């Protein structure tokens, strides 16, 4: 079967090649050059050439190019790879650093016909210490990091930093208060991802604050977990919060427990618990997936106050429609800063705002330049260069 197919291909190639081959001979590629591949760890050389005249004419006889390499200009040359027709570049990934290499390129035709170029080169593979394609990203990192560090430093020296009200967080007190009045418990779910997800870290920070309130109001707080690592961190944080509130004796380790790693096993268990115990307030903070809607719908049906917060864009709509308050994306990260008023958190929040100023300026300026260009009042090259400045490869 396979051979039949090969025969078919062969026939096809023959059909295409014969008229062309009869008409004229194949021309080689010209101006073969070689240079070190930039911005890499070495071991790579770029072989470049100009298209064979046959290729430019769109000659059907050209199948592609074959690249040959040697350590001396005289040869012997060995084949190192092929390139499609229309290509003018081949990256040789198996070069030794610091050795001279020479390249030749053949235009390949059907039936084993080929035309070989002059020798190009030499070039050596080298490793670079800085990826210059990424200098703009480097600059951006530098600006952001400096801004964040500067404000963390400033906040830690005692400077007051203003943070706007975040709706929902104002409600945390009310929610805990209401649970106390009703004599019912609070549930806090720190998402479904492990400690390596920054959303979980934000959630654990927030849990500390909620736990402190719960301790002050003498209300029971339960934290079901999907990950054992997160459970341990939650226990530490809650224990510390109870200690700070002056009620270490009220801390119950068993209220912070692990259920299962499985998504729906966890969803079903929490769901059942909510229906049985009817908590007065439920917090969903951290990374959630499809279970978000099940939780929020169930919580809504039992009439609990629900405060959600996640940076999973896909789940935000469900929290927004089914919960009383939702911290959207970055608000989740801001929440712990807002509640704790801790300098390092406030400072980094302020740093993030500096980032936003840069982003807003960059987009507005760019849009203005692009508009002027569209109206023909401004140089197109400048606008294009500006836009390109945000490209990182």
């Amino acid at each position, binding site marked *: 079967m396979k051979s039949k197919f090969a025969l078919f291909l062969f026939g096809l190639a023959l059909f295409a090649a014969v008229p062309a081959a009869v008409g004229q001979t194949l021309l080689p590629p010209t101006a073969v050059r070689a240079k070190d591949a930039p911005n*890499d*760890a*070495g071991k790579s050389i770029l072989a470049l050439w100009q298209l064979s005249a046959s290729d430019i004419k769109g000659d059907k006889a050209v199948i592609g190019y074959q690249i040959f390499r040697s350590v001396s200009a005289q040869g012997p040359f060995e084949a190192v790879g092929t390139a499609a027709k229309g290509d003018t570049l081949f990256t040789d990934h198996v070069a030794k650093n610091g050795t001279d290499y020479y390249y030749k390129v053949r235009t390949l035709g059907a039936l084993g016909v080929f035309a070989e170029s002059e020798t190009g080169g030499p070039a050596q593979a080298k*490793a*670079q*210490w*800085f*990826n210059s394609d*990424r200098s703009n990203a*480097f600059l951006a*990192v530098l600006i*952001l*990091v400096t801004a*964040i*560090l500067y404000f*963390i430093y400033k906040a830690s020296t005692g400077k007051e930093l203003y943070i706007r009200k975040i709706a929902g967080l104002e409600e945390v007190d009310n929610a805990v208060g209401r649970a106390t009045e009703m004599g019912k418990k609070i549930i806090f779910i720190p998402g479904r991802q*492990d400690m390596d997800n*920054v959303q*979980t*870290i*934000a959630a*654990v*920070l927030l849990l500390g604050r909620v736990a402190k309130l719960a301790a002050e109001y003498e209300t029971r707080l339960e934290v079901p977990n999907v*990950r*054992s690592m997160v459970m341990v*961190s939650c*226990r*530490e*944080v809650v*224990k*510390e919060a109870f200690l700070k509130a002056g009620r270490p004796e009220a801390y119950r380790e068993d209220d912070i427990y*692990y259920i*299962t*790693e499985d*998504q*729906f096993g966890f969803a079903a268990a929490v769901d059942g618990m909510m229906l049985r115990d009817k908590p007065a307030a439920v917090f969903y903070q951290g990374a959630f997936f*499809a279970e978000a*809607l*099940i939780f*929020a*719908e169930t919580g*809504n049906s039992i009439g609990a106050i629900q405060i959600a917060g996640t*940076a999973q*864009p896909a789940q935000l709509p*469900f929290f*927004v*429609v*089914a919960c009383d308050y939702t911290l*959207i*994306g*970055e608000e989740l*990260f801001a929440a712990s800063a807002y509640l704790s008023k801790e300098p*390092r958190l406030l400072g*980094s*929040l302020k*740093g*993030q705002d500096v*980032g*936003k100023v840069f*982003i807003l300026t960059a987009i507005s300026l760019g849009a203005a330049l692009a508009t002027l260009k569209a109206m023909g009042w401004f140089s197109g090259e400048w606008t294009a260069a500006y836009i390109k400045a945000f490209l990182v490869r």
Partner: protein
Amino acid sequence: MRREIPLIITSFVGFLFVIRFFIPHEPFASMENTASSWIQVIKAFAIWLGILNLLKISGEKIYKKDKGWGFAAIVIASFLAISIAGFFFPFWETRTPGDSFIEHARKFQYPGTSFDWFYTYVYTPLSSTMFATLAFFIASAAFRAFRARSFQATLLLLAGFIVMLGSVPVGNALFSWLPQGWQVSDIADWIKNYPQVAGQRAIQIGIALGIISTSLRLILGVERSHLGGEG
């Protein structure tokens, strides 16, 4: 010791992955590759940790005869059933000539193996149906939440309404009198591709900034509350 070493490890690895982005030169590339291989292994063990934790908790439940210990026993029994099928049954199944035991065992999830039977007839229906129940929940959520109570809620409602109609062929059929290029599906496509994208970008930019600053605090060791105290 219990807090410092983890902090140092986090900083070192975090810093490595950042500078590797800017410096192509060795030894960073190899270091990053090695670190990546380790993480592949550690993450595999982390999944095992969750499983072992589940078994431990179920075991304790059975041992203490807690409420619902029967279900815990079923968890362990079904765990054992599929694990035995995966680890040991390959040895009973017909081996391709020339394969060693281990080579054969690694074909544990081939069509026709007992492990594949579990996957197809137990795991797939159970997990798929669990997910499928969401169809009911989303309908009731839409019914309850999509009400024009305020301007914001009305925007939410309208966008949801149009995209829902535009997602199914019947939307165009109902409003077939609309001019070419202004069909419901065209309007839905426009909403998805423009205002929706604008909103998503704003959200993603915010999230990105939040993640960057938290990551930075982690790498610099400023953020350590997640490690908890001693213990």
